[in-house]
């Protein structure tokens, strides 16, 4: 595949300014540790500052008050956010990648005005509710139902693992509207506002990592929404979900890339500053190999992420404009997103282990931040479709001849 990628001056300025903003205005104000408390104390005051910078509407065009920076701009900012804090990065990704994107891509004009514009302006936050107690990566098994009545739908069911679920202003909720049709044709996406009757927040999960990102259970009991809140066409919810998840995985790759770059930078600083037996730790060949492996992973990840981001951008622009999307493009995006998800999440896992070994005993002490980075990366191999599912996507397309001999 012929591929040449170079950031524009606009994108380079975006990256540089986002890095300066995150490291000056956000990082010094982060809680010193993430052990005290759990969900419910997300640093939303810092999120508000980031919203004021326009980061939470990155891919939305200027006509709808977004930043008009596309998927590449979204990934650049995501990298810089994750380099500072993985919990805030999760809030950002759940909002932009899978919360906002499907509303913008599949929403009609009225929905874009009502939901996308305030989100792009930085006034509202979004979430995405797909996973259920009996349906994780197998999204086709969801049980939440939406019964049609005269003017709308009544939603009943429970969603779990919903990032931002307890404070999002708008949540994209997937429910079965026709049990006989299965995932393709039987699932519909709905827009549910936070104060809707019958919509309650359940348990906030206490987790191993990304502890300052809220992960909520959402309970729907006779929750009525008007028919105007159907997102996309009735029965096409599965397409909405898969399309959003493709972009979400690319964004997740950018986040792990940013976090791993920061980890490498911290490790280099550490091994130059710390001495053992009269010489810097960095002069040990075993340490140099770990650093070189991290740098190699990062180098490859960077190309993979921005290649996938560029492809996703083309894909999303066509959907947003209502233009036909070729099957070839859709499959290329799915495959590129799956590759990015696997490589980047496993890269951050390897980097986390290496960083702890480089730091030695200090790597296990919370104040150095390495153990936190190690805990935060564990989830990246699981959420937005486990890596096992991603391998299935790649293998299935290979067996169908997609991407072979390109």
């Amino acid at each position: 595949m012929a591929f040449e990628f170079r950031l524009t001056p606009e994108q380079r300025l975006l990256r540089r300014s986002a890095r300066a903003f995150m490291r000056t205005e956000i990082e010094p104000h982060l809680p010193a540790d993430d052990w005290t408390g759990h969900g419910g104390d997300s640093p939303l005051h810092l999120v508000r500052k980031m919203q004021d910078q326009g980061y939470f509407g990155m891919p939305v065009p200027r006509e709808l008050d977004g930043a008009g920076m596309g998927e590449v701009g979204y990934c650049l900012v995501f990298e810089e956010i994750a380099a500072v804090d993985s919990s805030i990065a999760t809030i950002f990704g759940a909002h932009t990648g899978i919360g906002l994107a499907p509303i913008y891509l599949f929403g009609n004009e009225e929905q874009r005005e009502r939901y996308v514009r305030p989100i792009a302006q930085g006034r509202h936050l979004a979430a995405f509710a797909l996973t259920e107690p009996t349906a994780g990566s197998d999204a086709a098994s969801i049980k939440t139902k939406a019964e049609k009545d005269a003017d709308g739908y009544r939603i009943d069911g429970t969603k779990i693992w919903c990032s931002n679920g307890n404070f999002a202003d708008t949540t994209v909720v997937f429910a079965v509207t026709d049990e006989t049709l299965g995932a393709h044709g039987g699932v519909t996406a709905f827009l549910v506002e936070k104060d809707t009757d019958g919509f309650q927040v359940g348990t906030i999960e206490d987790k191993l990592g990304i502890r300052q990102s809220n992960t909520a259970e959402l309970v729907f009991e006779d929750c009525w929404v008007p028919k105007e809140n159907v997102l996309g066409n009735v029965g096409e919810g599965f397409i909405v979900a898969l399309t959003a998840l493709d972009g979400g995985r690319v964004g997740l790759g950018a986040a792990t890339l940013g976090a791993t770059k920061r980890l490498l930078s911290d490790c280099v600083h550490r091994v130059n500053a710390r001495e053992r037996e009269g010489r810097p730790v960095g002069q040990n060949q075993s340490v140099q190999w770990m650093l070189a492996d991290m740098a190699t992973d990062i180098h490859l990840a960077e190309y993979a992420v921005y290649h996938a981001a560029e492809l996703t951008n083309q894909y999303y622009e066509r959907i947003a404009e209502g233009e036909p999307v070729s099957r070839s493009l859709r499959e290329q995006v799915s495959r590129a997103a799956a590759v990015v998800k696997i490589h980047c999440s496993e890269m951050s896992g390897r980097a986390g282990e290496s960083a702890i070994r480089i730091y030695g005993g200090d790597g296990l002490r919370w104040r150095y931040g390495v153990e936190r980075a190690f805990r935060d990366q564990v989830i990246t191999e699981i959420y937005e479709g486990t890596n096992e599912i991603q391998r299935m996507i790649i293998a299935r397309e290979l067996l169908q001849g997609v991407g072979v001999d390109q």
Partner: protein
Amino acid sequence: MSPGRDRPLRVLVPVTGAFHGRLRVRRSTGTLDTEGLERILSDPSVRAISLAKRLREHAGDAGAELLAVHVNKGGGEAILREAIAHGIDQGILVQGAPRETSDASVRAATIADVYRQHGPFDAVVGPARSEFGGFSGTLAAVAGHLDLPCVVGVSDLRPDGDGFGIDYRSIFGSYKLHIPRPCVVLAGDVAPSYPTAWGIHDAYQERGILRVQADQYAVRAALTRRQRIEAVREERQSVEEVEGGTLVRGLRSRALVPEAADADAGGGA
């Protein structure tokens, strides 16, 4: 509307560039190796823009129009677009200036020319420091060209009657002073601002930059670098050649050597 003002304030903000990335020195020549490095808006210029924006905030409904000017030494358009992303209303890129634009006096003459041609302005607000952190005399020279009052180290700026109220900090303390309009203000310790994603998009996609050719007459009117270097060389030669007694008399005539001290020294010998 502030007293004595029937239009929005107009502020000229001269901005400079800086190399972004790790600077290296070539061992063979001792010069900076800047190949492949991007030119970006310098940090002192970012602070100057922040100060100019403070003035706009204080101006209230009357508002203020901020115009950035950059004398191009390379990467000029990107520097101005970054300035626009920070909140500048219009960028003026001076092109075609001779190579001597790295000379502060020539650059000052060029900026003064822009001031005259695109004015009237109520203030020139700019950076006090160069990209490498040293004090920049360019804007002081602009004040000299335009015969305007100049103040250095300003941390806040607001309309105040027929002039501006300024917060000024020096090694002796912090002061609130008044300076008449128009004037030249060099930013001091002002917190930098960060361009929003919206601002960056608009700076590149929505906004134009005014390109002007350097006024060759104004540039020639200032000393060229060659002229200045030759002047210094001449002076040094004359000092080396001069006889000791003549030198002492010359210094005494400029009050650099007191009469009494000279008399004591002479008596001792």
